[in-house]
């Protein structure tokens, strides 16, 4: 195993994480709810109440790249790692899995762990473990 050690990337990750934590805490303190993206989007898909709050949050996420572009002049580099069939399979698994688990990286990983929730710790260890295993299988064993 080699470790990529890039101080600028570490700093950006930490700063981005702080903004995510602030956003999640603002959601809890300001609106009294969990900033869980799969839950907010899933409720919108299911026709749950308080559509306007859910749609507004999702709209903010969708428009964040435009604001980022305005502030910094360019978007960060993106490299896709999956082809279209893989994206379709991945999306389906993420959609159905996060609904069964009632949360994803944001709801369980950020909000739940910040609340020291044992339930969210189990969810986070499960999806991270499955993520590590899937990458090992796809990029080493089957590659």
């Amino acid at each position, binding site marked *: 195993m080699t470790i990529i050690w890039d101080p600028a990337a570490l700093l950006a*990750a930490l700063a*981005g994480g702080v903004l995510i934590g602030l956003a999640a805490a603002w959601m809890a303190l300001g609106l009294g709810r969990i900033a869980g993206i799969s839950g907010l989007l899933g409720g919108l898909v299911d026709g749950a109440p308080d559509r306007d709050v859910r749609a507004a949050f999702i709209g903010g*996420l969708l428009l964040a*790249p435009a604001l980022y572009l305005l502030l910094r002049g360019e978007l960060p580099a993106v490299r896709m790692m999956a082809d279209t069939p893989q994206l379709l399979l*991945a999306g389906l698994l993420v959609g159905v899995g996060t609904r069964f688990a009632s949360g*994803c990286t944001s709801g369980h990983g950020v909000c739940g762990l910040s*609340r020291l929730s044992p339930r969210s710790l189990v969810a986070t260890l499960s*999806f991270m473990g499955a993520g590590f295993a899937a990458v090992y299988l796809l990029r080493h064993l089957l590659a």
Partner: protein
Amino acid sequence: MKHRAQAGQAFAIGLLFGIGLLLSGMSNPQKVIGFLDLAGAWDPSLALVMGGAIAVGLPLFRLAESRSQRQLPAWSGAPIHLPGKTGITPRLVLGSVLFGIGWGIAGICPGPGLVLLGSLQWPGLVFVLAMVAGMLLFRPLDKALSR
């Protein structure tokens, strides 16, 4: 009117959340796969995303929980609804495992998927459409499984 103010706040929170995802590198699938690839050239930086978020989240969520315990509403006047912390069920674990496999295949989780779509990345649209389809499958699948 109160609802409109709440929606305005939710919009601003979504913007801030998305800026955080973009800045952190979470919305770049290459970085996510680099983080999940322990056996390759491991990129540990994304561990700091969760680390930074939780460092800020710990005291502030404590504040939210203490308000909730004292039956105080959120700043907007909305009641504070925080989910239970117990209830470790098979569906929690199996759902998380399915999610993790999908995350490992594409390197995209729900928030970054929406941010990629908003960046007008065509693969982001493919991922989000499939994710919404997966969410639509959830209720019928859940009904069939619990019969």
